[in-house]
């Protein structure tokens, strides 16, 4: 099934590509970001579409998707959460934060692996994964919900209730 890319999104993507006058291939990351932002994850169809758009073999796109933790190959929840796992946040309680979000949002992380790090809540509203250092070590524990950054998160109810 061919991917249906709205014309506005395609226009945005075409504009991004002009930022790389020397090599279209350089636009792989921005094109994938735009597709993931719209579709929630990178499907096989998205890989094909990006490859055609950039005149690349699909493997040149897929190898990028599978390498970078920022690209997902399966559908996340409506709101995707990334909790910082690394040292300073862990010292400030990020593992506990992960646990309480999962409890509150009914997310089961038992099936999570290195290659499949995202767990989705039962109702599909939230998905979650650990992220490595989000670069706000002085205000841990921190997390990203979609593109919103939250620091010194202690009240999970208050955090989640912002997302309807």
């Amino acid at each position, binding site marked *: 099934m061919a991917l249906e890319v709205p014309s506005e999104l395609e226009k945005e993507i075409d504009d991004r590509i002009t930022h790389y006058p020397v090599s279209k291939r350089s636009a*792989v990351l921005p094109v994938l970001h735009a597709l993931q932002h719209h579709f929630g994850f990178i499907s096989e169809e998205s890989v094909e579409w990006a490859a055609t758009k950039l005149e690349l073999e699909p493997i040149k796109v897929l190898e990028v998707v599978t390498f970078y933790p920022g690209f997902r190959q399966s559908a996340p929840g409506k709101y995707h959460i990334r909790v910082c796992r690394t040292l300073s946040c862990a010292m400030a309680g990020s593992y506990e934060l992960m646990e309480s979000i999962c409890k509150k949002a009914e997310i089961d992380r038992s099936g999570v692996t290195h290659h499949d790090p995202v767990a989705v809540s039962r109702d599909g509203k939230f998905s979650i994964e650990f992220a490595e250092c989000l670069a706000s070590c002085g205000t841990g524990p921190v997390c990203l919900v979609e593109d919103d950054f939250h620091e010194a998160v202690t009240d999970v109810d208050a955090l989640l209730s912002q997302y309807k």
Partner: protein
Amino acid sequence: MSQIKYIAGKEPHANETRVVFKNVDREGWDPSIETYLKDGGYEQQKKAFKMEPGDITSEVKTAGLRGRGGAGFPAGLKWSFLPPNNDKPVYLICNADESEPGTFKDRYIIHQDPHQLIEGMAISCFAVGAKLAYIYIREEFPEGAQILETAIAEAHRNGFLGKDILGTGFDLEIYVHRGAGAYICGEETGLIESLEGKRPYPRIKPPYFPAAMGLYLCPTIVNNVETLCHVKHIIGMGGENWSKTGTPNNTGTRILCVSGDVEKPGYFEVQVGKVTLGEVINNMCGGLKPGRKLKAVIPGGSSAKVLRADETFKIGKGDDAKEISIWDIPMDFDTLAACGSMAGSGGVIIMDDSRSMSWVINNLNNFYAHESCGQCTPCREGSLWMKKITDRVVAGKAAPSDIDQLDAVARNIDGRTICAFGEAASWPTESFVEKFRDELIADTNPELEDAFVNAEALTAAANLK
């Protein structure tokens, strides 16, 4: 600068010298170009664009500016590695991939003072002759990327970017390029591969020194956010004057990011070498938590070797040689190197006596195992192996001899990889084993020494016969 007011509760500490962070948490400040221009913004670009490009590089050299990203390499020297009589395009890349655990300085520059970075970049591009520049920003700063794109558009409209800038005939475009969550993209050649749309496998040096063969195999300069911001101030103050801040060979100011077990973690811009670690902890950060004792400090981002609280360090040479305690270490490049660690990215992580060192090193090993790009075997296999061993230590399922194994694995990564990630991944383990060996061993179980066997490996061994 006495008239500058800061947001209540976010005032700089009295020991700070705010240069790059002058506008961070400033009252009435916003990231718009109007605010920046009202404060004398882009005046240094106007000044620099009247200079000979080579003279800008000379000023940066005179200033003695050392890279703020991690390696501390002199920025002016880096620029002068561009090949003479070059007929290829030159590119400049701002490394805004800020991802060294413990570091959170570039975030505030990007979010609160984006035009400072753009001005610093424009001056640097003019100096090295780059007409196309990229800001490689980590994907986890989505708001930062937007703020930068807005700021670039504003700078364009005001004639500080684009064609024939300020009537000099010099053209420059800056674009924002977002990464996708990989630490290795902070390594400059990995970053370049990523910007070319590939997996960020670092390139081998030689021959791929970016200044000679960088982006699209053309001469390329890669500098950290904070470094590029300093270029603006060097032009403003003059290299000679700028170098009077800080200490010799460790000139200027730099931003220390303090996290972990202190009362008030945060960011502090200080003159390099003018404050000691003790002053940072006790004065600037309000000391340790009540009733707690200092146990360990990672002084320059997670890759820097750990310092133990009760160590003494020999610094200085000849008549100046002396032994100092951890509290008296001046926070500069050379002293921290003499102490066996590094100033790195300025990320200072404080650990008190409530922390298990097995748990800490395991947390870091998880990070490096996750972030190894997988290109070099010692690093790909070794970083995961180290994580597995410390996973066992933390779970109480390791034998005492595992600690020697852990150390041996680390030492077989160090120096055997294409890029410095090998050192970054192994130095934490090497230093934690060296300095906290007894504690790590105490977390192991001697009964597992002979009993601990890997069933899978035994089966494999039996099948070999």
